[in-house]
């Protein structure tokens, strides 16, 4: 054998040519590529972490600020319902009872608290019953009056009554108001808090879960302790009913027509582009449209959930149409062919086969559209659903649609505008309730999706 055919040495020299590298060692290109991939993953993780961080901050701050709204301070004292003052004629005639205004009831409460303080032997600088009125809500006499009108037989007796404390006292119990912060407050003195401290010890003042916040109506600016979100919740409910009943059938019908039946030409292209654009139109534009068309032109009642629902329907339609068309498009064309192939008409093919398969997507889109509408405030500004103080539960279903009301986000916005810090707390509480609703709707969307998809 010659030198030329000498055996090549074993080891690195054995590898020749272009790829003469060890598999164990990364070459420069691979290194660069792997580093780039690692970097990209790091960016992704960083982005997600930032998102989660802000989400947690948001949720924690909402819950921390909003939770106090769910409890309320009450002063529980026996109230003597003086027959001489409440029912001068002594015949318990409802019409006569009604003649006694809340001014007639206020002294009863003042006296009751004064008596309770005296009986317990608490030390206080207040000498007159009226001086303690700052501790109770201005709405307390009205509540007592409602109670008496509902139970006229209690007149002349002494009943244990949970009197709503004033927002300052409530704030003091929740740590929002301190003695220092009321130093220049004309409504209440530090001495009141001294008395409250003693009443807490005797067990007459307590904080309980605030059902009235969830079920109650809004209150005037000076009585945040009385305000609740319940009536505006009903307003939202009726609006959502309108939105659902209009936008689902109209949206689904429009999408089915556009997707399955409409000829593809310039005109339908134009419609398609416009629907996409409508989805991006600021919601306040829909509000002003609603104001012009529904209120100024059609003379529908202002501030009514019907009008709010109509405006939100306009806003929700593009969302529903887009998601419905997407889910119709996602149904494989082979299913349509199969149906047409056995002699089904186009409509049968769509309604028997395509629509059931697209249903989960349609439902999800609808619920997300509804959730969006539920949280919408801007268009409601323009049709008068913000600024109206909803103090009455609507009287029947027709009134639910037609009588003025507010909606949850509008109520939250309204509260956040008000000066009293107690309203600030209620705004956050309202947001918690709104978020719970949105979360429930999304969970329903997920469940529906799962259930429909499970059918093969």
């Amino acid at each position: 054998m010659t030198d030329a055919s000498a055996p090549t040495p074993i080891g690195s020299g054995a590898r020749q040519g272009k790829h003469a590298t060890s598999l164990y060692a990364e070459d420069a290109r691979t290194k660069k590529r792997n580093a780039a991939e690692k970097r990209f993953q790091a960016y992704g993780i960083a982005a997600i972490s930032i998102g989660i961080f802000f989400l947690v901050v948001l949720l924690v701050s909402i819950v921390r600020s909003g939770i106090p709204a769910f409890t309320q301070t009450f002063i529980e004292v026996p109230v003597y319902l003086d027959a001489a003052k409440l029912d001068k004629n002594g015949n318990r005639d409802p019409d006569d009872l009604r003649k006694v205004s809340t001014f007639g009831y206020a002294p009863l409460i003042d006296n009751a608290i004064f008596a309770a303080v005296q009986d317990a032997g608490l030390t206080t600088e207040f000498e007159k019953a009226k001086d303690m009125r700052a501790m109770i809500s201005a709405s307390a006499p009205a509540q007592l009056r409602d109670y008496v009108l509902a139970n006229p037989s209690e007149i002349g007796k002494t009943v244990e009554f949970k009197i709503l404390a004033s927002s300052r006292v409530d704030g003091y119990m929740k740590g929002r108001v301190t003695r220092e912060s009321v130093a220049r407050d004309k409504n209440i003195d530090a001495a009141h808090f001294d008395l409250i401290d003693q009443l807490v010890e005797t067990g007459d003042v307590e904080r309980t879960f605030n059902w009235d916040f969830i079920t109650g109506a809004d209150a005037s600016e000076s009585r945040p302790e009385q305000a609740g979100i319940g009536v505006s919740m009903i307003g939202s409910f009726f609006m959502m009913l309108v939105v659902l009943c209009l936008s689902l059938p109209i949206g689904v019908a429009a999408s089915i027509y556009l997707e399955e039946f409409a000829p593809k030409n310039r005109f339908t292209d134009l419609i398609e582009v416009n629907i996409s654009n409508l989805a991006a139109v600021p919601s306040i534009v829909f509000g002003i449209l609603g104001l012009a068309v529904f209120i100024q032109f059609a003379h529908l009642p202002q501030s009514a959930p019907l009008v709010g629902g109509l405006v939100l329907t306009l806003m929700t339609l593009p969302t529903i149409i887009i998601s419905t068309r997407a889910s119709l498009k996602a149904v494989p064309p082979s299913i349509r062919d199969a149906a047409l192939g056995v002699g089904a008409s186009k409509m049968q093919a769509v309604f028997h086969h395509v629509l059931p398969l697209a249903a989960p997507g349609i439902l999800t889109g609808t619920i997300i559209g509804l959730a969006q509408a539920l949280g919408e405030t801007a268009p409601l500004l323009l049709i008068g659903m913000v600024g109206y103080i909803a103090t009455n539960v609507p009287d029947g279903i027709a009134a639910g649609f037609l009588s003025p009301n507010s909606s949850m986000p509008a109520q939250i916005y309204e509260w956040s505008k008000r000066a009293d810090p107690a309203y600030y707390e209620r705004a956050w509480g309202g947001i918690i309730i709104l978020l719970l609703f949105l979360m429930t709707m999304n969970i329903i969307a997920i469940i529906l999706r799962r259930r429909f998809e499970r059918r093969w």
Partner: protein
Amino acid sequence: MYDTPNASADVAAKATKISAKNVQVYYGDTHAIKDVDVEIQDKMVTAFIGPSGCGKSTFLRCLNRMNDTIDVCRVEGDINLDGENIYDPKVDPVQLRAKVGMVFQKPNPFPKSIYDNIAYGPRIHGLAKNKAELDEIVEKSLRRGAIWEEVKDRLHAPGTGLSGGQQQRLCIARAVATEPEVLLMDEPCSALDPIATAQVEELIDELRENYSVVIVTHSMQQAARVSQKTAFFHLGNLVEFGETGQIFTNPEDPRTESYITGRIG
């Protein structure tokens, strides 16, 4: 009316089921099918072969007006089913498709139960008066589709849970459930493995007893195995149409010969 194993022998005895004359198909500006004349006979398998894009599937879809669903597609010429022009304005394509069933390239069972897959056609056409009749139709169709034995115990299981070959036989059973007169098959075996293909081919041979079958296929062996007549398409033209045996052994046109011997396509 008895079929002999060698069906080619009695080609001339069969009645014409579909006759196409001077058919032109346009996709927008593209002239996809040019001057096609074909006579499809009853109770016989006719195969369309040719390279990809030659228009054989397009022509097949003309026979039950499935091309109507494509906006840009335009069909000219005469296609007669039993002497009636299927493109006559009076003809409702839905009614036509009940007579001319179709099986597609990819098995496409409905995402419903096996039973509902078969029962769907008879239901919408009102072929069954009651549940018992419908049950009977379902069983008969599944037997014709040569899949009854495999699925009779799970009729209410989803049709999409079957294997590919079973799904395709289910689709064939679904197509025959509406009692069509003609069965169009667009490459029915292209998504199947050899065993499933053999089963489907056997089935096609059985279907010949009752139906006029038109099959589009890429596989020349398949055309040779199952068909009695073969049409060779090339670039939108019908190059040659004749008895299968003759096309494969003694083609008249040089293009047919080139395709069969593997030089084009």
